[in-house]
């Protein structure tokens, strides 16, 4: 400019970028300089004109919403957890159920393990039976006074089963009856105990024949009595004996 004033300095004055002392200097100069006064006026008009560019382009609300959702993700971390909560709870429930089933299995394993031990120890014993008899009318009375309950022995005559005898067995510190029944080359134990809370815990209420290596085993409860049939006979052989025991002890 002819006066020597820098246009950029005038603009800086308009932009409020000068110190108070500098601004005062510019104002004093402009009062006496028409060229600079015109420049200031032109800058002011330019500014006003450029306001047209403000808000000239408006975003699509859908875009705004989309971006808002994108950036809101971290803040909704808790929301994510809320969303995950049912899954977490579900997993926890499944874990608890699995634990319960596993515990139940191990408990029942414990129960079946004990009767299996009884069966095996009996087979290994030099005296597998205390009462040697094929006659149920001999065996049943023998138990009287030895065990705190009575039960019925089915009639094996005419069947493929042979009653070999019986003895007193102990399960859960309770005396019970153990009948040894032969089926061809197989020996099967029929264990009868008074049902206790512990037995109710370790045995399912009723289980049809199931494989428990190397034995097949079945258990059920009738009244106050718990029956367990275990042996190395096949499932059908065990099942048939179970049927006979059930029929005799409805």
């Amino acid at each position, binding site marked *: 400019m002819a006066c020597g004033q820098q246009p950029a300095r005038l603009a800086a004055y308009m932009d409020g970028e000068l110190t108070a002392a500098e601004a005062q200097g510019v104002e004093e100069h402009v009062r006496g300089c028409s060229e600079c006064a015109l420049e200031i*006026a032109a800058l002011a008009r330019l500014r006003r004109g450029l*306001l*047209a560019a403000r808000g000239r382009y408006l975003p699509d609300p859908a875009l705004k919403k989309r971006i808002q959702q994108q950036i*809101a993700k971290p803040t909704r971390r808790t929301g994510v957890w809320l969303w995950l909560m049912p899954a977490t709870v579900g997993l926890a429930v499944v874990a608890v159920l699995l634990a319960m089933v596993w515990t139940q299995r191990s408990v029942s394993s414990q129960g079946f393990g004990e009767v299996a031990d009884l069966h095996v120890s009996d087979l290994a014993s030099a005296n597998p039976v205390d009462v040697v008899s094929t006659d149920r009318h001999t065996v049943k009375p023998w138990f009287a006074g030895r065990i705190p309950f009575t039960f019925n022995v089915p009639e094996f005559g005419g069947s493929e089963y042979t009653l070999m005898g019986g003895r007193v067995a102990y399960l859960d510190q309770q005396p019970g009856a153990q009948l040894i029944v032969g089926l061809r080359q197989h020996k099967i134990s029929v264990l009868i105990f008074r049902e206790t809370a512990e037995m109710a815990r370790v045995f399912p209420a009723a289980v049809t024949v199931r494989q428990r290596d190397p034995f097949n085993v079945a258990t059920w409860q009738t009244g106050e009595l718990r029956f367990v049939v275990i042996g190395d006979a096949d499932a059908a052989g065990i099942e048939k004996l179970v049927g006979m025991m059930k029929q005799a002890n409805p």
Partner: protein
Amino acid sequence: MDPANFEPMAMPLFDQLYNFAHWLTGNGVDADDLVQETYARALRGFGSFEAGTNLRAWMYRILRNTFLTSRSGLAAQKTMNLDDDDAGAVQEWTVHAVTPERLMLQQENRQLMLDALESLSAGDREILLLCEVEEMSYREIAQVLAVPAGTVMSRLSRARTRLRQALSATAPGKAV
């Protein structure tokens, strides 16, 4: 900063960032992409944003850097010398002979002003928008453009000059 603070702090800037993005890119499709990418980058980098510093300048800077590395931004740099500090092309003395902007504004012809702004290089346009539309201080503008504060004053002055030249060109018959 905690990313949880990002949305409430950054979303109020959305409309003006979008406007700025549209002016930079020159079209709505690229502006959409630019703003979206800007917010995504800002969110990723929000951990390094220092509380108490200027979020607006920080966001504009991200938007600008995003633009510069975008396809349209690279094209703009090739043809428009976005970061050109060469003042040789501007002859400031020509400006004062005519004041067509006065005439146009008297006619309230916004469109001519907008057209003139559109015709500028992206570099001139952005600094004018930051100063006049966003009303940023030179210091803020320096942060956005990542240049020394002293550079802002001279670059802004040149941009204003070129805008006035563009106005003269779009309304030659009305030049005073």
